[in-house]
């Protein structure tokens, strides 16, 4: 039995065409990423059966949900869907909202129970409340819990953070991370925010004008120089690392990634904890020899792999390889020329800032 998700949709509406042919991994979080209007939400709606694609085929872990010959209506698809705006039923309490889907799933198919979900999403104190009295973040947590309680085989999330302000977002993201760490349900997560993708995704699909342009594992895909979207100041890589040492005197932690290690601000994680670090291209600089007498703590040997023009004619962006991991660097074209950088050249990178994001 195939363990992945095969989705092929062709759908035309209002002069826009969605035309995708994807194979997504059957576990972890796949972020569907792209600018507004690129068809991300339409793709998700087609997967859910909320929009009936002109032509569609969808197979989830060996089960056919849609093909030329058959079309399973939304309510028969074992999926969970979280909308951009929490769509809680206004006439039901939080608890009855949560149990709405749960009650409609046959007992034999229930794998997730109320107690565990309520704890996972921290909503125990809200159960008796009505949806109108909740904050935006609380509503989305309830909406996710409600979707999970149908024991879905696939969880679809359409920019669940879009309606939240930055504080609520930061409050909410840890819950999504717990979801990712503790449940074995594949998630397709639509987003146009690079920071959400960096934090949550294992795999990304980049869409543009109704088509998928790049798909792949997070680290290598973000390090590609041919990404069609202009991340601009947000361009950078995300590396998976493990905390290996803590320097309590200076409140620093050393994290090890494939190819080296970095000192970062101590996030309170125990030694052995898996984390993600994000390094933006603008926070990396290049030297031809190890430099002494600078304030920068993280200095690593690397090799230039590929060079490309950046979003401004003065700038170029380089992909380097540090051991097994990629790194993006933004330089002015003049610096690159002055240092005679070219693919294959060994250099030293100085990393000014590393964000620990998990």
């Amino acid at each position, binding site marked *: 039995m195939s363990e992945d998700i095969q989705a092929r949709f062709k759908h035309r509406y209002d002069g826009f065409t969605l035309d995708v042919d994807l194979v997504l991994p059957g576990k972890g979080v796949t972020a569907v990423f792209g600018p507004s209007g690129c068809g991300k939400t339409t793709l998700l709606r087609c997967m859910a059966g909320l929009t009936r694609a002109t032509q569609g085929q969808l197979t989830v872990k060996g089960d056919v949900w849609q093909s030329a010959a058959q079309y399973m209506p939304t309510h028969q698809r074992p999926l969970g869907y979280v909308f951009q705006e929490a*769509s809680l039923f206004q006439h039901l309490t939080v608890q009855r909202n949560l149990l709405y889907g749960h009650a*409609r799933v046959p007992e034999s198919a229930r794998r997730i129970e109320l107690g565990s979900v309520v704890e996972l999403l921290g909503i125990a104190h809200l159960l008796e409340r009505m949806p109108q009295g909740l904050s935006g973040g609380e509503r989305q947590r309830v909406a996710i819990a409600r979707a999970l309680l*149908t024991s879905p085989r696939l969880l679809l999330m359409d920019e669940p953070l879009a309606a939240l302000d930055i504080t609520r977002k930061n409050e909410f993201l840890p819950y999504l991370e717990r979801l990712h760490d503790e449940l074995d349900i594949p998630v397709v997560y639509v987003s146009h925010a690079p920071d959400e993708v960096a934090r949550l995704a294992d795999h990304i699909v980049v869409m543009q004008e109704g088509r998928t342009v790049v798909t792949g594992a997070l680290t290598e895909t973000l390090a590609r120089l041919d990404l069609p979207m202009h991340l601009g100041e947000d361009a950078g890589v995300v590396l998976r690392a493990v905390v290996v040492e803590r320097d309590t005197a200076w409140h620093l932690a050393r994290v090890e990634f494939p190819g080296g290690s970095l000192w970062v601000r101590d996030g309170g994680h125990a030694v052995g904890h898996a984390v993600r670090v994000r390094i933006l291209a603008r926070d990396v600089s290049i030297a031809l020899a190890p430099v002494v007498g600078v304030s920068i703590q993280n200095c690593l040997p690397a090799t230039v792999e590929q060079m490309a023009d950046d979003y401004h004619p003065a700038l170029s962006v380089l992909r380097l390889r540090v051991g097994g991991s990629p790194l993006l660097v933004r330089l002015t074209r003049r610096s690159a020329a002055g240092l005679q950088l070219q693919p294959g050249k060994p250099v030293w990178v100085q990393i000014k800032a590393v964000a620990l994001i998990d």
Partner: protein
Amino acid sequence: MSPEDFTALALTAKLAALSTVLLLILGTPVAWWLARSRSRLRSLVGAIVTLPLVMPPAVLGFYLLVLMGPQGAIGHFTQALGLGLLPFTFAGLVVGSVIYSMPFVIQPLQQAFTAIGNQSLEAAATLRASPWDAFVSVALPLARPGFVTAAVLGFAHTVGEFGVVLMIGGNIPGKTQVLSMAIYNHVEALEYANAHWLAGGMLVFSFVVLLLLYSRGWNRQP
């Protein structure tokens, strides 16, 4: 009040209650369709449903009389079914009232269904609810204020019916003589005291109904 007045009062209440129940049953699917369909027929059906709102009751009553009479289409139909003719019967009044009060029931329902929007129903579908299940468990409860408004307006409007009754029901005590007809009779006979009792009662009734409706106690979002 005379015994005849009480008979008229009871008949009116029965007529209004029956018409309202029928309208809620028949009007709900029509209002649902009007709120959600994208068919081109929608504006046509919408106009037909609203027509009794602007048409003079005498006109409506006249056409109903013709249609339900021995030469009319409805008349042929009811006779073929062995039901006889509808004019000057209580059943005829019910048919007239249902048509006469239709917009007062369908419009609030349609507005309530429109206000629910797609999102709640789509959410219900992603939570394994079939379309019928979602209608019953989500749309109906969310539209409750619309149902209250529709029922109250439908009932109150039927109670005040005169022109249609005059045309198709006549003035048969205990059968088709409703309150407004009783008032008319009293005035004709110069029995102003009796007319005052009934007319004043109707005035108070209408006022209280609207007061309750507008005080939001009934009409609040669930």
